[in-house]
């Protein structure tokens, strides 16, 4: 089945230690999105790629970066995680305006 896969499902890192989360898709969608979801809150868009065109949300901290080496893969890099970055990180794919986004099961990030 075509799907969105996130690895790892759970990630524990130390305060200030860089961490990378990965996402892959078999849906062949043009757009890949990264959302942050904290407990009992709505998912919040961090940034997205349309093909190789990167679009950052205005309030996304500089600490968060992303890479998309090809259509299938996208990475979220957190350069110096703080305690406030502990959250579920959701990757989604879609074909753009008017189309639903399809989500992976997320990576739960904990900061020690």
């Amino acid at each position, binding site marked *: 089945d075509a799907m*969105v896969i*996130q690895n790892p499902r759970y990630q524990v890192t130390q305060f200030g230690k860089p961490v990378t989360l990965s996402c892959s898709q078999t849906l062949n969608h043009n*757009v890949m*999105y990264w959302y942050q979801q904290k407990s*009992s*809150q*709505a*998912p*919040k*868009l961090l940034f*997205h790629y*349309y093909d190789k065109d990167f*679009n*950052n*949300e*205005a309030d996304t901290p500089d600490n968060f970066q992303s890479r998309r080496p090809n259509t299938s893969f996208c990475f979220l890099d957190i350069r110096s995680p703080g305690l406030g970055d502990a959250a579920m990180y*959701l990757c*989604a794919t*879609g*074909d*753009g*305006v*008017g*189309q*639903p*986004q*399809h*989500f*992976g*099961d*997320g990576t*739960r990030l904990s900061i020690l």
Partner: protein
Amino acid sequence: EDQVTQSPEALRLQEGESSSLNCSYTVSGLRGLFWYRQDPGKGPEFLFTLYSAGEEKEKERLKATLTKKESFLHITAPKPEDSATYLCAVQGMIGAGGTSYGKLTFGQGTILTVHP
């Protein structure tokens, strides 16, 4: 700025007790309103897309409707397996930076619990 408000925050039902969830929205040029289901520890699962006022979509015990200001998710004769958080999201004309590649603005969700 697009905004979405869902009510109630939490809803407890007995099995078989029908009810509705509300999603009120303001958006600059609606391109789509989306309903998702989210189980604990999982990503949102797509349910429905609605594009224009008066549109309705159905899937098993769920029916979604849309007006110019709100959407309802009606649950008929719910079962315990319908227990989940239901998220509503809108997609407007313009995203951040003037580009629009399908950015979704989500509501806080309604936590539905169905007791046997």
